[in-house]
């Protein structure tokens, strides 16, 4: 049942991606309402699918790679939707919708079912807390990176005096920089809580806070990168293009920690033989 809604959501995200991208390439308007409605439709179906899985399983669906990717997509779309209501913009849609669609399609390659008995470590209240914080941080940093990409593009157009259609539909530099400034501490806050909750969970599960498994190490590297960014912004007053570049660099780190580490290394976060077939968290 929840899988039907999941598929509907994935298809809706895909359709809206196509609509948004064709809109950018062909239309002359400034708003792409049809694309947005498909995102909203997908978001509702997505929400139903997650809630349904929660009720069916009796615990928050966060144990598998499927769950992680699906929840990640859901958070990205949620933040995007809030931003759209404040300032509708087709360019952000043309980035958020495809990202959500790709995440959903990747998720669908994993099984949502927990075939083997779940490892005791995962039967803990720390699981939803840790995963929610980590993914919320990721989602915020994703949107921040999109704003960063838009900033760099818009800045280039203005500097080079190339005033075309894109220039007109992109938000102002100030808007994008404000988004960066506001998102940075929020994302950093979530990331920090994600790491702390992970450490507390590790302590209750294995008796030690920190075990230097690859996921932990790379999370720490990511954390330092964003801590440096917060410092540059607040203390040194970095803004604009530099801040936008950093948002992109940070995003690469986030993505590597999220996906790359799981594929390349093994550690506490890959519960081989446990419930996670290809764990991402």
């Amino acid at each position: 049942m929840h899988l039907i809604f999941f598929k509907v959501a994935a298809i809706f995200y895909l359709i809206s991606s196509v609509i948004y991208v064709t809109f950018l390439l062909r239309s002359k308007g400034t708003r792409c309402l049809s694309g947005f409605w498909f995102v909203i439709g997908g978001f509702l179906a997505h929400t139903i699918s997650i809630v349904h899985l929660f009720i069916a399983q009796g615990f928050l669906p966060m144990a598998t790679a499927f769950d992680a990717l699906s929840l990640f997509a859901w958070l990205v779309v949620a933040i995007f939707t809030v931003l759209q209501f404040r300032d509708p913009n087709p360019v952000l849609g043309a980035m958020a919708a495809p990202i959500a669609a790709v995440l959903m399609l990747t998720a669908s390659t994993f099984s949502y079912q927990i075939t083997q008995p779940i490892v005791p470590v995962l039967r803990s209240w720390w699981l939803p807390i840790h995963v929610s914080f980590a993914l919320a941080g990721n989602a915020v940093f994703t949107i921040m990176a999109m704003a960063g990409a838009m900033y760099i593009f818009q800045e280039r157009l203005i500097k080079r005096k190339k005033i075309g259609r894109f220039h007109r539909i992109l938000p102002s530099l100030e808007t994008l920089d404000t988004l960066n400034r506001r998102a940075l501490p929020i994302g950093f806050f979530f990331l920090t809580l994600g790491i702390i909750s992970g450490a507390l969970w590790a302590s209750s599960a294995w008796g030690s806070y920190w075990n230097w498994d690859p996921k932990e190490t790379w999370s720490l590297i990511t954390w330092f990168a964003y801590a440096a960014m917060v410092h540059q912004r607040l203390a040194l007053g970095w803004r604009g293009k530099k801040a936008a570049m950093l948002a992109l660099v940070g995003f690469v780190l986030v993505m590597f920690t999220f996906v790359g580490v799981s594929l390349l290394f093994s550690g506490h976060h890959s519960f081989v033989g446990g419930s996670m077939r290809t764990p991402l968290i």
Partner: protein
Amino acid sequence: MIPIVHDFLVLGINHNTAPVLIREKVTFPGNQDGAVTRLVAQAEDILECIIVSTCNRAEIIVVTNDPDLSAENLIELVSKIHELDVESIRPYFYIKKGKEAVRHVFRVTSSLDSMVLGEPQIVGQVKEAFKRDAAANATGPLLNRLMHRAFFTAKRVRTETGVALAAVSIAYVAVELAKKILGELEQRQALLIGAGEMAELTARHLASNVKRPIKIINRTLENACVLAAEFDGSAESMEQLYDALADADVVISSTGSCDPIIRFREMKTVMHRRRHKPIFMIDIAIPRDIEPEVNDLDGVYLYNIDDLRAVVEENIGERRAEAEKADKIVDQEVGKFINWTKSLEWAPTIVALKERFEEIRANEISKMNGKFGSLDETEREAIDILTKAIINKIAHGPISFMKQSIKTTRRDQHVDFVQRVFGLDTFVSETESEEVKTSDYETDYRN
């Protein structure tokens, strides 16, 4: 059947057909309350009238029984109103009839006939004229419908094409760019260096968007003070230039200096002082006031007059391409409207009315069929005859009402009325909803 007696007619002058000298004479003085329109509407053969008068055009839009005769009468009337010689103004007027008149009204309202293609004020002006003349009882069902369709068309053109999107004056482009860089301008600091017509125009346009008083710097403090008084700003001396730059968000520079007054090296220090907070600099002076290399600094966006002009040119070109798309929309809407006027005949309306009643009757009978199970054939027949008699009696009233109207000149009004009362007009619902929505036209346009 009597042939169609009403037709649309537009008589007008605009920036293409008449020089300013003529245009400024034909302005319909004293029409603030629609008195002149009413006078025209009372002329022989004329049923409805609207007069639109702006600085670039004057249009008399009428519904008439005899377009040719009315055109002649109207020109004479215009010359009488403005105390001009008929022959001296005749060559400047264009006359459009029927479908062409409809298309012309749609194009004018959609700003496709404007001097600056796509400029947004015209919809508001036409709407004002329509409101005024409707309040003066000079309009009727045909013009009311025509104008609502015109506003609907204008809205389609605005939302579906990019005709109204691009800014086409240098001052406007400068402000748009400032908004793209700095977001909302309200709390921004503007700085004007030097003076000059272009600079002052741009500064004025900017001042209407900025709440903080503009700073003005001039080589002679007195001149700066004079300008400052005019702008409600504050004057500063040339020595304070770099302090002012560190504080400003938008700079317009236009001095008569032979050498650049803002150099790369100094600007770099300024940017450091302002922690690379973005600054938009407009260099209107020739020779340049600001070294072009300044644009390479992080956070500095430097545009000179040629850059701005290039943006304007590009925007104008873009608008032209979009106008073709807009004309297609106008064609569609003209076609729809002409179809509607054709439906305003009593014979097809009677057929439609009878069909509607029969449809209702048949529907109700079929709904009751289950309960008729116990009835025999003759009883069913009796019910059929009874219900048919009822709808025929009901239809009699509106049909004779329309037939009587043949004798009057306003039979379209009667037919229109019947169509609306019995919901025969599929066009109505769309138009009615538009009627409510037209009120957001003024607010929608930013200019």
